[in-house]
């Protein structure tokens, strides 16, 4: 099958699950199939927006991020469901498991998409055959549709997977770029948002083709280093490698929430902080990290937002610690004005196993009591390897995913 692979260069797949949350729900409950279905945040509250919807709903014009009331107006028969993140996470893990059978180089990008570098997988078939089997297996084993892009780099693969939905397979070669990509408007390009497209327009760049031929100096002045990058992309050039570990590069762990209504009620705000602390703590435990800096975000009624942080003496990861630090910071910096949004962020992260706690003269006895146990565990690890034993609380985490999900976080990959 080698003849189907380039002599130099790579073959990369971008696998993009089609309306993932809705598809998972339909796989779970087949009576939902063929009906307009939308997954939305808190249905009764103002932050209730459509997270994703089925293709049947899309026909009515329902779109992601649309407020619920608007979607309901467009499609009165729309079935609304709250997200079941546990299900999505389980499906996502199963999906990446399948992808990993075709290559070790699998880079998850989010819960429902990832890159697979199959350059060295020629013994499994041609690139198209591999894409077809992957698509077939995902639908047969998980009942989940996807679109796959096949291309020599990540950018083109991503663009390709976007071209046929649902259940498409698209090959995009570099030589196809002038015909396929150049006629597109710049904002249709992955990596070019609304703001960037507006800026490009201001110097007369409307299409990807314009961008591909644009003056580099002008681009750099307008967009900085990103200008050069998107010009390369417009020419089909992307040198980023598929990196299976990229998902574990994170510098902070934080969660925030918009309150159901603006409030000055301290008890209520404490409860919100308590809940956020729980979420952050669960995420930290899952990633097996500890932090030494705690930060909070407060957005007031007038949308003025402040962030404040503090370095603490000993690394923390427990909910109680996070809550008490966050509460202290909050009380110090809250002027009593109505609050719209609260957030907690842990930064200065260290791997759990490299973190240390400085013992305290007045409280070390508590830790010292655990010494025989800790020593036994250390000896076991030394003898049989690091994964032989871990604390039950760490095991607990794998079950307890309570409310740690946002559609934009990548924790599920840990």
């Amino acid at each position, binding site marked *: 099958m080698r003849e189907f692979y380039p002599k130099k260069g790579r073959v990369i797949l971008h696998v993009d699950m089609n309306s993932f949350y809705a598809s998972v729900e339909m796989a779970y409950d087949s009576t939902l199939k063929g009906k307009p279905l939308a997954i939305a945040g808190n249905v009764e509250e103002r932050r209730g927006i459509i997270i994703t919807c089925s293709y049947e709903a899309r026909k009515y014009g329902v779109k992601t991020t649309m407020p619920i009331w608007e979607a309901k107006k467009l499609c009165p028969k729309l079935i609304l469901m709250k997200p079941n993140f546990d299900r999505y996470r389980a499906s996502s893990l199963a999906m990446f498991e399948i992808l990993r059978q075709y290559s070790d180089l699998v880079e998850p990008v989010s819960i429902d998409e990832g890159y697979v570098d199959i350059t060295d997988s020629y013994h499994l078939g041609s690139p198209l055959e591999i894409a077809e089997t992957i698509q077939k297996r995902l639908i047969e084993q998980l009942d989940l549709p996807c679109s796959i892009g096949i291309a020599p780099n990540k950018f083109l693969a991503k663009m390709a997977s976007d071209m046929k939905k649902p259940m498409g397979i698209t090959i995009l070669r570099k030589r196809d770029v002038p015909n396929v990509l150049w006629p597109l408007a710049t904002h249709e390009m992955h990596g070019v948002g609304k703001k960037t497209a507006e800026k490009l327009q201001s110097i007369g760049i409307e299409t990807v083709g314009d961008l591909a031929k644009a003056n580099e100096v002008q681009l750099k002045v307008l967009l900085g280093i990103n200008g050069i990058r998107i010009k390369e992309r417009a020419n089909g050039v992307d040198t980023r490698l598929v990196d299976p570990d990229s998902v574990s590069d994170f510098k902070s762990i934080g969660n925030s929430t918009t309150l159901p209504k603006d409030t000055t009620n301290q008890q209520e705000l404490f409860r919100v902080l308590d809940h956020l602390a729980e979420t952050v703590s669960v995420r930290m435990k899952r990633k097996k990290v*500890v932090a030494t800096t705690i930060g909070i975000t407060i957005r007031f009624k007038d949308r003025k937002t402040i962030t404040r942080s503090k370095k603490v003496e000993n690394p923390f990861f427990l909910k109680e610690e996070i809550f008490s630090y966050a509460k202290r910071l909050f009380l110090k910096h809250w002027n009593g004005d109505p609050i719209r949004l609260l957030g907690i962020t842990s930064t200065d992260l260290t791997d*759990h196993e*490299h973190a240390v706690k400085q013992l305290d003269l007045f409280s070390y006895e508590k*830790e*010292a009591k655990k010494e025989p146990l*800790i020593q036994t565990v250390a000896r076991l690890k030394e003898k049989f390897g690091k994964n032989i034993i871990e604390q039950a609380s760490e095991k607990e985490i794998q079950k307890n995913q309570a409310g740690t999900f946002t559609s934009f976080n990548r924790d599920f990959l840990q």
Partner: protein
Amino acid sequence: MRFIIQRDRLVQSVQDVMKAVSTRTTIPILTGIKMVATNEGVTLTGSDSDISIESFIPNEEAGDEIVEIKQPGSIVLQAKFFSEIVKKLPKDIVEIEVENHLQTVIRSGKSEFHLNGLDAEEYPLLPQLSEENIFRVPTDLLKAMVRQTVFAVSTSETRPILTGVNWKVEQGELTCIATDSHRLAFRKAKVETENTDHYNVVIPGKSLNELSKILDDHEEFVEIVITANQVLFKAKHLLFYSRLLEGNYPDTSRLIPTDSKTNIILNTKEFLQAIDRASLLARDGRNNVVKFSTLENGIVEISSNTPEIGKVVDEVQSQSIEGEDLKISFSAKYMMDALKALEGTDVQISFTGAMRPFYMKPLHDESILQLILPVRTY
């Protein structure tokens, strides 16, 4: 007020009292230095209301005339300007004269400054301490005791009492203890007392640091007066007052382990250098942790691992290792601070377990002890 004075003596005294002057004070006049000229000489005072320093310049010393008083009087001058002015005056002799309305003239050679002063009557009075309960310590010993303990005070205000050094005087012995709750420094010495009173006070670490800077290393005695809320150090021509910290210092006597499971004797300098090397790879201010393990044949291994930078392994030959094998991790900084404070070529380290405090002292010397709490890994 009018007097003529040797510039270097004035500069020295100004520098000493400046140690107490703070630019951030709630009492505006304390940004100034008070100067009082009497027929005996000139007295300078600086204070931030926590620390007050009084420096006296006598008319003459060992036959040399230092000050010539033309007219006694007093004034308060802005410390910031006055200290810079006297430092930069061109000649060895300075004339200071207060004219009308607190206007002060400072002359030296062809240079002449006019500085607006403040009324010395407005300057707060220093506490009057009854000087019955005095004990005496040689200056160099006092400085050593301060140096060996004050570094261990807490810099955090979470437990204010720990920002001071606990001084106890009992049966002719002075004990100094400082702890930030992660390490503890202990030093004791015989002092000269006239009575059997005992004291238990807490002196702010900052005060002791400043005191130590002002005192010269010599064997003359410093007289120390302790009252309920002030301590006064009296050296030649110098009075140093400090407020005491309020509150009870935690009882540390129980915290120093009495038994030990592993005893190791090491050459202090070799050990210090090995710790210093092992801490090189530590990231700034964080994870500055080294691992200490006993190996065969009396060898101690010191290692450190910072994943994103690298690792280091060092070995030190001990003079003896007695008792159980041991692996323990601790802050390299605390260890270096402690080793630098110890005297003597060899150090004895006593451990009672990887999660319990361990302490160091020079061989055959009970007067000083440094205790450190280890770190535990998660």
